[in-house]
């Protein structure tokens, strides 16, 4: 049924819809499923249906809420209790307690810092400090139900644009909002749209870049899985503003749930006439196709992505002629990232003036980061631009586990930089991150503690990038390979005094000479670790020592006789039979036999296994 207005759509979708007030919500993104959300949903639904409680209680699956640390979890409404690490066995108790309006204290979130149990999601510091303009609806929407999106005011922005605004006015509004591209480049979105609108050539294309490839970054997946219609609505509005009638969602093939949910959303939008010909009777037509990614990290680069849509190998080309003028098949093409598109309906609904109040001078709005690594509260966080790294790490992230010391945070994905402790008060926005040698990138944040070796970190990222470089241009292909070899030598204790200046020389040539942004930013992990942690490189090279105790060739495991109780756990787990000792007497590691796998250190409950 094609609708002529959103009011008509609301009536169609929401008539007779009555949801019970009491709801048990389960976070059902890919990550939730990996931790058992599917089993919990089945168990809860089984209890509800077998007891015929369907009209009193609703079990609802939503997209990811972002709090990975306590997955799988459920939120019980109307009270907002959050139950952490729920198991299928908990289902009967959760159902009963919810019917009685009674909380289950044993399932409350336990704050890693204060050890205090916190009943409600909204009071947990992880959520309290965020500003979840985009992620917030992930908690309320069933991703495959367009009715949920519409009930929350979805597609109102589209209607407003089609009825009341000219394309130029839409562009002006987006320009005024100060929205910058969330894929990493940070280019002003409104200006990009304007260039594409003005570019000569037909047809024009809009593209949603959902080829999220940074290790440890998953905000785009979460948005596509949790609230696909918001991305779609943003794209339709953008297409209207630009004058495009065809669009592509280029999504990683490794994201099957995201592919499924955005495809479902497109079908639903088509069914109601929100996509297709004459949208809402406005005369404007627009269609979207899902293209599954070619499986390469570099396909997230806009020109490589467009080559991939054309059916060619995903290799970047120089952007001297911008893609807004000559993109897919040489036609004007406007590419924005998932998160950028999702911001658009918000800006139209609430206005550029409202949006501009959030964030910093040069970076407006919120940004979603994936906070991972050595951090207590792993998860996706949405914060206003300008928040400090310290607030993110210590207040939202709950600090470093095991009482260890913070060492660095790596932002911006593999070609971002490592930011040290002395810069923790840095306000996070596009320009500040670039100033310290890192970048916003797609918003990955990997926290590292004192047991992380920064030379090893640089080696890890350079190895990743060497694998993922397309290999077209000389500096990136050959430079990354030689850098990886040098870094490997250093971590093996075979570093030479001239290695550091040589690394710096390669980095400079790559920054200036590489063809695309992958190669131009690839030196960042090396340059920032050299800038902020040079003494670690020097310790490896001059003293053949790894200060963090990570690089295998440079460390020795030993047992602290004072601390060892002779429990024998390490002896049992050692695969090299390098540990000897009588029960209840201190054990010893034979350094000749030890293969430095670290298993003994992992199992020791008395912190008696040491590294030097």
């Amino acid at each position, binding site marked *: 049924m094609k609708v002529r207005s959103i009011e008509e759509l609301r009536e169609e979708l929401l008539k007779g819809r009555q949801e019970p007030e009491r709801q048990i919500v389960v976070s059902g993104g890919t990550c939730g499923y990996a931790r058992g959300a599917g089993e919990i949903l089945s168990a809860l639904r089984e209890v509800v249906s077998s007891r015929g409680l369907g009209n009193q209680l609703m079990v609802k699956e939503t997209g990811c809420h972002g709090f990975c640390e306590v997955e799988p979890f459920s939120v019980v409404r109307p009270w907002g209790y959050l139950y952490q690490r729920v198991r299928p066995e908990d289902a009967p108790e959760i159902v009963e307690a919810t019917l009685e309006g009674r909380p289950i204290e044993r399932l409350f979130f336990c704050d890693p810092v204060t050890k205090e149990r916190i009943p409600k999601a909204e009071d947990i510091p992880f959520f309290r400090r965020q500003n979840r303009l985009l992620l917030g609806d992930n908690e309320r929407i069933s991703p495959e139900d367009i009715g949920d999106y519409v009930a929350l005011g979805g597609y109102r922005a589209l209607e407003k644009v089609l009825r009341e605004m000219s394309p130029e006015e839409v562009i002006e509004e987006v320009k005024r909002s100060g929205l910058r591209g969330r894929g990493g480049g940070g280019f002003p979105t409104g200006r990009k749209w304007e260039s594409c609108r003005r570019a000569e050539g037909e047809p024009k294309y809009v593209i949603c870049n959902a080829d999220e490839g940074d290790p440890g970054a998953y905000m785009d997946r979460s948005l596509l899985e949790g609230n696909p219609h918001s991305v779609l609505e943003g794209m339709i509005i953008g297409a209207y503003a630009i004058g495009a009638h065809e669009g592509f969602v280029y999504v990683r093939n490794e994201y099957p749930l995201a592919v499924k949910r955005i495809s479902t959303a497109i079908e639903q939008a088509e069914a109601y006439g929100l996509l297709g010909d004459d949208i809402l009777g406005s005369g404007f037509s627009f269609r979207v196709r899902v293209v599954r990614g070619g499986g390469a990290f570099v396909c997230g680069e806009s020109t490589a992505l467009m080559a991939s849509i054309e059916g060619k190998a995903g290799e970047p080309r120089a952007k001297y002629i911008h893609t807004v003028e000559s993109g897919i098949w040489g036609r004007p093409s406007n590419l924005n990232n998932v998160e950028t598109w999702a911001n658009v309906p918000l800006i139209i609904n609430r206005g550029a003036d409202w949006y501009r109040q959030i964030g910093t001078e040069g970076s407006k709005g919120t940004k979603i980061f994936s906070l991972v690594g050595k951090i207590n509260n792993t998860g996706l966080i949405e914060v206003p631009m300008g928040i400090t790294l310290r607030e993110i790490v210590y207040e939202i992230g709950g600090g470093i586990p095991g009482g260890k010391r913070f060492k660095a945070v790596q932002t911006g994905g593999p070609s971002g930089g490592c930011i040290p402790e002395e810069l923790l008060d840095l306000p996070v926005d596009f320009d500040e991150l670039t100033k310290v040698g890192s970048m916003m990138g797609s918003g990955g944040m990997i926290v590292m503690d004192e047991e992380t070796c920064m030379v090893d970190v640089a080696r890890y990222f350079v190895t990743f990038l060497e694998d993922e470089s397309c*290999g077209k241009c000389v500096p990136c*292909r050959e430079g990354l*390979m030689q850098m990886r070899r040098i870094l490997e030598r250093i971590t093996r204790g075979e570093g030479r005094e001239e290695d550091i200046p040589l690394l710096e020389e390669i980095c400079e040539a790559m920054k200036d000479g590489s063809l695309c942004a992958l190669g131009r930013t690839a030196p960042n992990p090396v340059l920032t670790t050299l800038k902020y942690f040079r003494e670690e490189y020097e310790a490896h090279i001059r003293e053949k020592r790894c200060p963090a105790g990570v690089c295998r060739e440079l460390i020795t495991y030993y047992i602290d006789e004072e601390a060892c109780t002779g429990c024998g756990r390490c002896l049992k787990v050692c695969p090299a039979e390098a540990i000897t000792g009588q029960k209840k007497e201190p054990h010893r590691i034979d350094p000749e036999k030890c293969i430095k796998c670290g298993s003994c250190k992992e199992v020791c409950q008395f912190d008696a296994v040491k590294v030097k």
Partner: protein
Amino acid sequence: METVELTIDGKKVTAPKGSTILEAARKNGIDIPALCYHEGISPYGACRLCMVEINEGGRDRLVASCIYEAKDGIEVRTSTERVNRVRRMAMELLLARCPRSEVIRQMAAKVGVERTRFPERPPEEDDNCILCGLCVRACREVVGVSAIGFAYRGSKREVATPFHESPELCIGCGTCAYVCPTGCITFEDKGNVRIIWGREFEMQKCKVCGRYFAPVAQLEYIRKKAGLPEDFFDVCPDCRP
């Protein structure tokens, strides 16, 4: 013809609108080194030797001159310290990749690189290929068959036939070998047979002089494409009246 006027190394030059900086420079007798460029093939921007520093609208930046369009009023400097740093590093990296290639050694010497600080590829791995892609582009654009392409990515990238098998689409013309700047693609003519990319091609014998002058597959391809009569290539070009 519409032209643009720009400055290259302090010299005012004009060039047809739409030409690249590299074309404008070479047309005016200014040399810019390049390895992946050929005037008959679309530019690619991969070797990065042709990088130049330009000033456009008050902003200095490095661009690959083989793909950057020559525009009115831009100032181009072909040999600044920044440019030379990139060129020297690119050549040092290529010299480690192909230490036995005379062309690479000469080109390196030209930009001031006599030796490489990186470990050289051992002889058994060294195929002299610098991955400039001239062969791949020539096969696609000039010949029009796309018999070879790139395989793998990053430092594992190589030029290969599909699945490393005997190339079905190849017509044995040898254009790839002809454009290869380092001579790493070769073919062998043994009487009535040409061997290239591991495939044997039957050669056409000239009815007049008796010389085996070209692969039958290539002549068939040309004949069909140009709509020539069936006996057109019975005689070699030298014996044709």
